[in-house]
């Protein structure tokens, strides 16, 4: 047992990589839930993004094209959900669960011929001498483009939700869709766009798994990352920066678990794998024990179908 063999700088740098897929998926889902829609299909959208991104990257030889393909594939899958819940008025929970199951099966089918192939390498961004700085260089300037993109998306979503008209409308739709409709906002259109954004983010998060983090395609490789992302949104009480903090916390736990094993500290993997969910349950209990905070956090119309009247 030797904690000294765990280098904190490497740990932080690698937890950022480990957290990026769930961070992307969670920030997308945050926008969806802020619009009042509960999409439980994150896992399915992620894995379809993972296989589509992988296939496109292998075929074209370009990881960037792979990621674009993943964005499109994630959004396309989420469009099924949008059609079911916003046009056909299906139940959101059932549709989301179906989407996850569909995504897992569909990706396995698509990915059959890609098992065991090595994808083209995603290069780290070159910051020149900055990357050689001690500590900071490794943590801030030693990553591939998607890590920065994910941080940019979090900042962008935070700014957009709080300081722009579009973001205000989206929050209004999620808070009270009847009021928003009465004021003349297009509830369904806003929600469909939010769902597409969530799908795109989840797809990109999935591609990061198959192209950078693992990098390989195996069936069911998201292994619950989508569910962690969903839990993270609640954990963060629908606030973008808390999603970032939560994602890095969970990423840290994942990385630490590997490091501890390598250091010979024998905690059964299962305990550590459970920990994000246990933390989420604890946070939910704490949050719901205080009704004041809970009612202010969750979007008022979350999960409710909108039927326009009159």
């Amino acid at each position, binding site marked *: 047992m030797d904690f000294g063999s765990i280098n904190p700088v490497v740990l932080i740098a690698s937890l950022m990589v480990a957290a990026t897929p769930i961070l992307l998926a969670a920030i997308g889902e945050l926008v969806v839930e802020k619009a009042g829609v509960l999409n439980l299909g994150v896992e399915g959208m992620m894995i379809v993004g993972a296989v589509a991104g992988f296939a496109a990257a292998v075929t074209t030889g370009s990881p960037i094209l792979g990621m674009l393909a993943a964005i499109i594939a994630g959004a396309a899958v989420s469009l099924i959900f949008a059609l079911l819940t916003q046009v056909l008025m299906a139940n959101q929970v059932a549709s989301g669960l179906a989407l996850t199951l569909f995504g897992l099966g569909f990706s396995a089918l698509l990915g059959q011929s890609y098992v065991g192939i090595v994808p083209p390498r995603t290069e780290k961004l070159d910051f020149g001498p900055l990357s050689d700085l001690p500590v900071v260089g490794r943590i801030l300037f030693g990553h591939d483009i998607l890590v920065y993109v994910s941080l940019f998306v979090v900042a962008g979503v935070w700014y957009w939700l709080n300081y722009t*008209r579009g973001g205000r409308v989206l929050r209004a739709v999620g*808070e009270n869709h009847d009021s928003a409709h009465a004021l*003349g*906002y297009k509830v369904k259109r806003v929600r469909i766009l939010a769902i597409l954004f969530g799908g795109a983010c989840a797809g990109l998060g999935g591609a990061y798994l198959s192209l950078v983090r693992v990098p390989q395609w195996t069936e069911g490789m998201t292994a619950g990352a989508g569910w962690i992302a969903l839990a993270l949104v609640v954990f963060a009480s629908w606030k973008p920066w808390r999603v970032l903090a939560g994602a890095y916390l969970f990423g840290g736990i994942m990385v630490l678990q590997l490091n501890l094993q390598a250091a010979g500290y024998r905690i059964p993997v299962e305990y550590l794998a459970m920990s994000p969910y246990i933390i989420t349950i604890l946070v939910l209990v704490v949050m719901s024990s205080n009704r004041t905070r809970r009612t202010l956090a969750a979007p008022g119309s979350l999960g409710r179908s909108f039927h326009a009247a*009159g």
Partner: protein
Amino acid sequence: MTTPLLSLQGLTKVYPGVVANKDVTFDIGEGEVHALLGENGAGKSTLVKAIYGLIRPNEGTMLWRGQPYAPNAPAQARATGVAMVFQHFSLFDAMDVAENVALGMDNPPPIRELAARITEVSNNYGLPLDPSRMVGDLSAGERQRVEIIRCLLQNPQLLIMDEPTSVLTPQEVEILFRTLRQLRAEGRSILYISHKLEEIRSLCENATVLRLGKVVGRADPRQESARSLAEMMVGQSLHTPSRPAAQPGKMLLQVTDLSVASPSQFGTSLKGVSLSVRAGEILGIGGVAGNGQDELLGALSGEIRAPAEAVRMAGEPVGHYGPNARRAMGLLCAPEERLGHAAAPDMSLTENALLTGAWREKLVTRGFVSWGKAKGFAEKVIERFDVRTPGPWVAARALSGGNLQKFVIGREILQRPSVLVVNQPTWGVDASAAASIRQALLDLAQAGAAVVVISQDLDEILEVADNFAALNGGRLSAPRPVQGLTMDQIGLMLGGAETGETDVAA
């Protein structure tokens, strides 16, 4: 004659199976306060939605200052100069006042600038409002101010107000009317929809009466009596609730020093509330919304538990009992919020009848629901209280507010309660239905029940109650007999100036 501001010509709107508006024609002049009168379901809401661009009429035209006007969307209506204050506020609880106002504007300025303008306009019109407060923390009157200010910031020529006073106190109504008169003096027009005929008589110079979607009359409300207007609306002569003098019987409900914390973050806790109601007596409890009405109803119904001794029914302590145990003993309640509290919106009327009637009407035997009996009970409520609905299989959500209210109140009354507590029994209900609900309450008391009517409508309390008490900040004043009570005294009681021991000098 000058060109009217807005002229409606032959407007017709047909929904599948229902003609909501048929050939509606009337004019609204510049600087005119025009009343639109009608019972629930007369087609007033459909009509104003057409003016505001939320729906498109099937036939007919509208002219705005002589030009054709056919808005496709509210944004277009707002651009023309039409603004609307909704009956059910279109507000967002978890957002602040400024954000709520911005959402109702087409080109809102930056929030900081907007906040300054909100403060300015709200002071100009005597409607003080802090732009940084969360809307969820505001009272009904303040919420309405948010709606009105949202409209005023767009400098409208025509302001549509749908039942603006249904949730306001007399003082708040006074403030609102002052604002509306100021708006008229500025040359703006107002289309005013209300059931409250006295208000219309004091405010409006023209009235159009709708019945079943058609214009059935035009009047100058200042020249008519409230009764004649009501009869025009209903199309028949109106029945005024009557009550013979009754001898109060034995003590049925007694609340002693009841203090409970509010379960809601925006609620008011009850502090040392005491009251007693005898058989055959109706106690009216007035007060501005949000002063503990919901909490008092909750504590009486059993949704909020209290110490056993704090609430007694016919001498027996029941404070620690939940709603079902109290129902079984004959203490029934009808809360204010129809959809979601008094009735489950997506369940049928039969199911809703079952929800509160299961015990006293014995609709459940050995754990199994007798659907036949439940349906029979629902049908009885529908028939006795003239609930207009195709049948008991209809979802509660599909009923208009007034019809559902009749169902909810009727459901409790038909269970022969020995104590009945109702909150806002005629909120949003038209004149004739309100009269029948009040009559039913009086009949119930006559038959020997103790009735508590919590209401913000003082006229209603004065009409039905024997004694009056006021809720203020979670405290209840000592009850006083309604006979001989003046509006000034009531105002003082509502303001909390009078706690009961001292007699107010006349």
